[in-house]
């Protein structure tokens, strides 16, 4: 419980109506999209600007009150569950696009801007902000930056990190700093911008961001290829890139996923297909046509059972439906849906998918895998029921083994959802003791009192003695 006088001070900073302490509000900010995590905060605060945030942070630092920044709470790593109570900080009043700069091709935004609304606003000006996580309808830019989110366009265009040019940050001691700027080149000192991208709210609070834009591609084409052998699908992915073609999108669905998608949506997918690739290319029309023709050829050479190229927008949408309905279909199978996020080098996609299928069998759980084949980012997804303790335990074991395998194959425990509390126990797998220690030293120097999003990134057991 927070002291009354401290609550008063918060109220004086942001105004009475932007501070919530009712049990309803506290309960409503006690969870995010991650199954199995919940903790009630002591207070929920919605500040108006950077200065107010700095004042709030100072109070928290002085009194060692934990502080958890929260965008839309769509992260899948328990990144916003306030595990140690304290303050949940909302950015709902900081949701303006401040400037679209046509000359420098940048956009300056506040952290609470919803990704999709940003994308729509810049597209209206003929510009593209490429990072497009599947959650973009609701996720915020602040959340995207802190999770370093990626999307379907990641293979060709990169992820959020590649578009963050500058940040305004409130540090845990209340200092306000600005990093980077509207600059293509900047080597003045350590690259703090990059350090804060993907920092999961553990180092400071991002209150403004300058993001890079690119010109809108003129033209786009979509195609779908189905395979009887998952190795052929994987070989296709490699062959496309060996042929020096980088598609805008290269998505993958495995057989269990195809099966459930088809069963529920009846869109005419071959359920005996072991794998499906969804491929998109964008750019100048002639180049796109040439690329798509070549890709279709490669697919056929590598024994694709069917290859269909969309003739128009409508057909393209029909093809992407398969990929887009994957999650919603799996989510309907059982009450709880675990969407995980293991990533391997592109060349290891087929072995990884096979490992996942083996692990599913070993622990007797259903795992549907889909994801971004182009960049090796796979989403093994498990429909289950958290109330079934015994099964849930098997699911946990299966995931642990999947992460181990991913790292063994030269991959990582998370490609885009973040470490949070969920993956904290596995961080060591990827970084080793020394790696974790290096990260902790960084954390320690920015946030000696451990007020910023405590309990995330670093596993409790590792944290003892601090």
């Amino acid at each position: 419980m927070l002291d009354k006088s401290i609550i008063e001070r918060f109220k004086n900073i942001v105004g009475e109506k932007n501070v919530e302490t009712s049990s309803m509000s506290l309960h409503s900010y006690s969870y995010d999209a991650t199954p199995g995590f919940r903790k009630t905060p002591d207070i929920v605060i919605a500040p108006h600007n950077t200065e107010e945030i700095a004042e709030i942070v100072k109070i928290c630092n002085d009194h060692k009150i934990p502080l958890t920044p929260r965008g839309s709470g769509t992260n899948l790593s328990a990144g916003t569950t306030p595990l140690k109570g304290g303050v949940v900080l909302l950015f709902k009043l900081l949701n303006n696009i401040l400037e679209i700069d046509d000359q420098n091709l940048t956009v300056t935004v506040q952290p609470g801007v919803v990704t999709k609304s940003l994308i729509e606003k810049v597209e209206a000006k003929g510009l593209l902000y490429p990072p497009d996580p599947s959650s973009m309808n609701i996720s915020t830019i602040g959340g995207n930056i802190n999770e370093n989110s990626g999307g379907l366009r990641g293979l060709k265009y990169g992820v959020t990190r590649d578009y963050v040019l500058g940040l305004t940050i409130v540090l845990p001691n209340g200092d306000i700093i600005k990093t980077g700027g509207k600059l293509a080149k900047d080597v003045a000192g350590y690259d703090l911008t990059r350090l804060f991208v993907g920092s999961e709210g553990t180092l400071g609070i991002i209150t403004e961001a300058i993001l890079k834009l690119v010109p809108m591609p003129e033209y786009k084409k979509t195609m779908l290829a189905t395979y009887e052998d998952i190795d052929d699908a994987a070989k296709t992915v490699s062959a496309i890139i060996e042929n020096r073609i980088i598609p805008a999108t290269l998505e993958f669905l495995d057989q269990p996923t195809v099966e459930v998608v088809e069963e529920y949506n009846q869109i005419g997918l071959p359920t005996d297909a072991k794998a499906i690739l969804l491929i998109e290319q964008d750019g100048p029309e002639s180049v796109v046509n040439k690329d798509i023709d070549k890709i279709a050829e490669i697919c056929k050479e590598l024994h694709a059972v069917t290859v269909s190229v969309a003739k128009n927008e409508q057909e393209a949408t029909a093809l992407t439906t398969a990929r887009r309905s994957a999650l919603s279909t799996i989510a309907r199978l059982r009450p709880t849906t675990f969407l995980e996020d293991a990533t391997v080098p592109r060349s290891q996609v087929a072995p990884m998918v096979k490992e996942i299928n083996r692990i599913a069998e070993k622990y007797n759980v259903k795992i549907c895998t889909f994801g971004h084949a182009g960049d090796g980012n796979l989403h093994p997804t498990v429909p289950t029921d958290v109330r079934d303790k015994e099964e849930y335990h098997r699911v946990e074991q299966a995931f642990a083994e999947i992460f181990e395998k991913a790292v063994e194959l030269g991959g990582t425990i998370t490609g885009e959802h973040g470490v949070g509390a969920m993956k904290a126990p596995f961080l060591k797998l990827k970084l080793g003791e020394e790696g974790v220690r290096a990260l902790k030293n960084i954390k320690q120097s920015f946030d000696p009192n451990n007020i910023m999003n405590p309990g995330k990134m670093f596993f409790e057991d590792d944290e003892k003695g601090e």
Partner: protein
Amino acid sequence: MDTLVKERIQEDFQNRMDRDELENCMRCGFCLPVCPTYIQSGYDETQSPRGRIALMKGIVDGEIEPDEDIEQTLNECLGCRACEPACPAGVNYGQLLEEARDIFNQNKQHSLPERVIRKTVFEGLFPHPNRMENMTSLLTFYQRSGLQKVARNIGFMKLFPDTLATMEKVLPTTPTRKEMRSQSSYYVHKSQPKATVAFFKGCLMDTMFREVNKATIELLQKVGCDIAVPDTQNCCGALHGHSGEKEKAKELAKKNIAAFEQIGADYIITNAGGCGAFLHDYGHLLHDDPEWSERASHFSSKIKDITAILIDLDFHMMPLQMPEQVVTYQDSCHLRNVQKTFEEPRLLLESIDGFHYEEMNDAARCCGSAGIYNIVHSELSMKHLDYKMKQVKDTAATTIVTTNPGCLLQMKLGIEREGLSNKVRAVHIVELLIEAVDRRTSM
């Protein structure tokens, strides 16, 4: 709320809420951007579908006490169910909401005035067609006797809250008792016979909006339907169901099912999105009643909106003509989100020569009418309406088309509030279609 009441509510939550359904919500938040109350509240999680589901689950799990705040956020939900089609997991939010509201309501001591109103509306008025007629007759008398003028002139309506006072101005001119009674229970097709349907006439539609019902029947005749209008049918019970009077809703449902079973029509046609959706949900309403569940599902499977059958029977292929004008369409939330009927009304409007159809921004967002929401949560409702009217104005439409009586009244209210009453009109789609047909035949 005292501790005892809270305990009772919690117990009811544990016994009655569908736990699987609560568990189905994976808290992904995909429903947030479509929720009008979430947006209107300035993005407050407690006013969102994900938030409300979490609160319901919290009560079931004993993590949070049911209190006034929670009751309020449940009551302030518009029940528009826009969150359902947006949900990847297919959570049946509407059913959770109805159950939760019913639990709060049953354990609640209503204040005396509210008790009187609830009793009058839910027991005394809506379930009794003849009393609905009486009330409408009173209104007719009020409108036609000159009393309405007098009341307005002496500023009598100023005594009421703004919304009600404006509402009084926009009520349609109601039929006389004689007009209401002059009703047949069977109508024969007027072109190539194609289907036999039954018509669900509704209570407001049957009294206050009699013209709309007349137009509906004429349209059905013109596309080749024989139409039975069973006279033992009743109020659909939507108002009861949505206001935490579930048992009464069930009684009404059973009467309706029995009334329509005798006819055996191909479809049961509705022309009010709200009623249609509730009838569509009878299967769920009675799902745990062994005697009724199957009969209810069978009934529900036959529900079809007038716009959907008109499209099925190619009404839009007929030559239709209207004077040049810009027209826009306000979705009925329930027609769209529950019955999934939203292309049909648009197709119909676009098929009329002379119409320039202009889709408004956020046409699918609730206008704030939502049953009796605009009366009980008048201030909030007007905020939703103001947003809606801004979108309407951006289309420059002079005709706003709706498919539900509540939305129709709300749009009229909006027009009045914006001072647009001599520029813009709001109509139910069937009124417009019958106009278009008549114009063609008179040409």
